């Protein structure tokens, strides 16, 4: 009887430890990601290499000559290259393929072997800024999730139905406000 109780206790301890470990891994602060700031950050030249980190409610870009911080709460839209492809390849993409100028096929800004993340944020005067970063494949989604967790907004949720076009998504966003 005592042995059985010990076994149960041991099992429950192991189970709870396993849960704790997995939770701590999930909550682990995202490490710095090596990125290239393509365009957009004030005072930073185009195609500047640096590292990107999301912590304490802000997105921090550190490069050789300094750093630039953007409050996560001021980010009104964060989208990855994959989000854009889904949006363009969805309903809107189908419609625009019929458009003149041969429009509609996903127009990639840069080489496709990179992940891309685009943010749009407001400065204290209300001015809209945009910034584009490229990074190794697979990192953009993690950064997006971290930003959303710290108060940023997005027009395209990662698990959203890909058939919903950006217009529908922005309408939904307006309704949320």
């Amino acid at each position, binding site marked *: 009887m005592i042995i059985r109780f010990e076994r149960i206790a041991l099992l429950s301890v192991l189970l709870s430890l396993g849960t704790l470990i997995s939770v701590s891994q999930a909550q682990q602060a995202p490490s710095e990601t090596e990125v290239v700031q393509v365009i957009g950050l004030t005072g930073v030249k185009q195609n500047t290499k640096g590292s990107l980190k999301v912590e304490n409610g802000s997105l921090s870009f550190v490069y050789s000559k300094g750093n630039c911080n953007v409050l996560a709460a001021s980010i009104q839209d964060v989208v990855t290259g994959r989000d854009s492809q889904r949006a363009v390849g969805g309903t809107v993409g189908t419609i625009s393929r019929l458009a003149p100028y041969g429009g509609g096929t996903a*127009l990639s800004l840069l080489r496709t072997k990179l992940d891309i993340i685009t943010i749009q944020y407001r400065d204290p005067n209300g*001015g809209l800024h*945009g910034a584009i970063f490229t990074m190794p494949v697979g990192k953009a989604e993690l950064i997006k999730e971290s930003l959303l967790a710290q108060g940023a907004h997005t027009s395209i949720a990662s698990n959203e139905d890909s058939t919903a076009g950006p217009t529908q998504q922005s309408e939904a966003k307006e309704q949320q406000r």
Partner: protein
Amino acid sequence: MKIIKTATILLTLIAGLGLGAAPLLCAQEHPLAKVNATVKASAIQIEMVQAGEVSPPAEFRVALYENLIQEMQKEGGFPKVFRDGDRNAADAPNLVILRTTVIGFKQGSELKRDVTTVGGATSITVRCQFTDTEGKVLLERNIEGRVRLIGDNLKATDDFAKKTAKLANENFSSDDKNSGYKNVI
């Protein structure tokens, strides 16, 4: 003698028709062009690029917008350039507002450009509308950004921005600009 007379009349008619039609043909080249004398403006506010008949990815719209702001600051000739939503723009006298809509793009190929340096051009066409604060259209043009030889598609956005800034510089003037170094003989 009669033949010479007929030929002269015919030639005169042809020449007359040619001269008369020339301005009409020129006018048809740019149906959206509204030629204005230089409009006085002390500041410009640039709105975020909108998706029109086609929907470019977010990164493309942001690249167009940011390049436009940079080029307008460098070459646009406006003493002040305000971003979309900037509250300080409300106090600016003679404010011009620039609205841009992507109306078309042609997907090229960077690889093809690298290899052939001839084919694979990317082009993006944007409708640019300069208005005053009351919404009156001051100037409207379709501007095409292209990347032809070498480089990624980002260069098409840069090309568009340069052309737009040049257009603004040619069509709008401010007191500051007139007294500036450029105009000193």
